[in-house]
């Protein structure tokens, strides 16, 4: 198993750092899946994570100038590592003005991802800062836990309102209730609702637009048959939604959510070279 990669471009480095920062705000530990073309940060929905799952996909070529991978075996040319994204975040933090950043899979007292940044210095010799981030190699027999999640059969798909607005609404609602209902219809309308003994608050968003999932979305029944005014809803823990909205460092070019009525809230953020999917289970 071998992995070596290098980033030279400062813009790529900043972008990669922002993605890692976003992931580190969503979870303390996740799986980093490395293939020849992509990197994935995966959190599989387990009780421990409160049932949320995350799939963040990066196209390697858009970030790294050099990327060499030798996976577990020829027919399984991938590497799965369990890592604390916060460590990666910390290592990248002070390397933002580096001339180059190299990442390697190494073995110190335990398997590590070693990040070495060459920094500008006052002399002819560069400063080198090296971080050894401990990782766990995930054996092949467990890889199936970290497959790409299937696109659920959603009832409604809708673009999100401006994230900043949505975040401030959710932040305020969090003060009043632990749970929030997100409902939306195919008419571009979305409501965020809380309902407690003392107070009910609803924020209405209109004209958001609905993504045109055609034949390439794995949607079996055509959404066109659905009554456009009919709301699909998911009641979720506000904390989880807030955590997702707060962590965002990358401004997505497209932000949308798919709702499986009373089952799942599936948030999708798309950027040119990064996609982030976050699944929040609905509660009763």
């Amino acid at each position, binding site marked *: 198993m071998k992995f070596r990669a290098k980033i030279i471009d400062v813009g790529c480095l900043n972008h990669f750092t922002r993605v890692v920062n976003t992931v580190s705000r969503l979870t303390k530990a996740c799986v980093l899946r490395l293939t020849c073309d992509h990197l994935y940060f995966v959190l599989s929905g387990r009780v421990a994570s409160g049932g949320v799952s995350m799939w963040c996909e990066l196209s390697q070529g858009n970030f790294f100038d050099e990327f060499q991978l030798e996976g577990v075996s020829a027919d399984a040319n991938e590497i799965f590592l369990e890592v604390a994204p916060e460590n990666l975040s910390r290592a990248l933090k002070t390397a933002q003005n580096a001339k180059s950043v190299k990442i390697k899979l190494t073995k110190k007292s*335990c398997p590590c991802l070693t990040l070495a940044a060459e920094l500008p*210095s006052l002399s002819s010799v560069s*400063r080198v800062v*090296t971080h050894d981030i*401990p990782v766990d190699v995930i054996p092949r027999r467990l890889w199936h836990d970290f497959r790409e999640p299937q696109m659920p059969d959603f009832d409604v798909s809708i673009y999100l309102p401006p994230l900043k607005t949505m975040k401030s609404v959710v932040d305020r609602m969090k003060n009043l209730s632990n749970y929030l209902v997100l409902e939306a219809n195919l008419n571009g309308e979305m409501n965020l609702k809380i309902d407690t003994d003392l107070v009910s608050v609803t924020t209405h968003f209109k004209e958001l637009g609905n993504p045109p999932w055609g034949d390439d979305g794995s949607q079996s029944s055509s959404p066109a048959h659905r009554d456009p005014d009919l709301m699909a809803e998911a009641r979720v823990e506000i904390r989880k939604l807030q955590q997702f909205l707060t962590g965002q460092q990358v401004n997505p070019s497209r932000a949308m959510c798919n709702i499986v009525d009373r089952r799942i809230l599936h948030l999708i953020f798309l950027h040119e070279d990064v996609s982030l999917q976050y699944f929040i289970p609905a509660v009763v």
Partner: protein
Amino acid sequence: MDCVATGGNVKVLAKAIHSLSRIGEELYLESVEDGLALRSVNSSRSAFACFLLSPLFFQKYQAPSDQSFRCKMPIKSIQAVFKSLASLDRSVEKCRIQLDSEKNRLTITLHCKHGLLKTHNLSFQDCESLQAVFDKESCANVLQAQPRLMVDTVLHFPPSLEEVNLSVTSDRVWLRNHVEDDADSLRAMMTELCLSSEEFDHFAVGTQTSVTFCLKELRGLLVFADSSGLPVSMYFDEPGSPVILSVTDSVLEANFVLATLSEDSHPKKNHVNSDTKHPDTEQPPDDFMSDDMDSFLIAMETSELPGPSHVPTSPPPPTNNRKHSFIEDEALAEGPPNKKFCSLFFSSVLPTPSQLPNQTMQSQEVLASDSEDENQTETS
């Protein structure tokens, strides 16, 4: 005692105090003919700092009539006087520190713009002189760098990082986070920064060395140096000997002395007085290396030394028990019991001038730290 600082020096004074607050809870103030000394030490006696402000630092400097005055006070109370650096800059023109010997108060008056006078009366406690014994000249390794280099270096380590390891060879310097050798440490993230000797203003490495010390306490000095723009000098020797960081200009000298991890598992006896080692007075090593804090307290109560048990060290009776007492000091250091830092040598011995050429207050008798017992007469 009466001294007046004006203009930018008021802010420097304030910064010195803030720096010292990163070390210990109390400020030791001493006014002698040579200048005003501000000192602090941490509770485990592994970090000591001293700012010596010469009379030229002040617009007016009048030493106390009986040659010296010393006191200590909670550092928070004097920090409150110099709370906001920005407002000091903007509005304070002059700062006057006077001893009101009648009322036993230290009066600090800030003369601000528009004729505004802010007067603070601080009560203080008498104390013994606090002076760590160290000798910069005898250190085998000396590095000097612009403060920016040091600040940038330290940035790579998390603010919570306690201990850092500094290693030098003839042309390179490595700074690494230090992790205790235990099961948890195998999973800790390790960070290492490598600098070339060319980045330093002065690089004199006598022998390849590696020392480990506490980074947190150092940050106070770095902030001070960075704002003053003065280069920082580092003096260090082998593991176990303290590392000294120093910032100097014509009117001010700051020394931060930090204990370093010794290589053996037992606290190394200080080199300065190695001839006074008494193997039989050394307490059974297990007591002091165990995690049980009680064993420290028990040891103190059975010691010959007077003093309240919450003070880790007490000044010894002036003559006979000197050697015994500082060994006690070292062994009784507070703090995480399994730390292998040796306490700095707080001498209870009056040094001969030849032993300690670098000590700034030549005329000062050095004693172990102050006593909480105010009835103790001051030896001068």
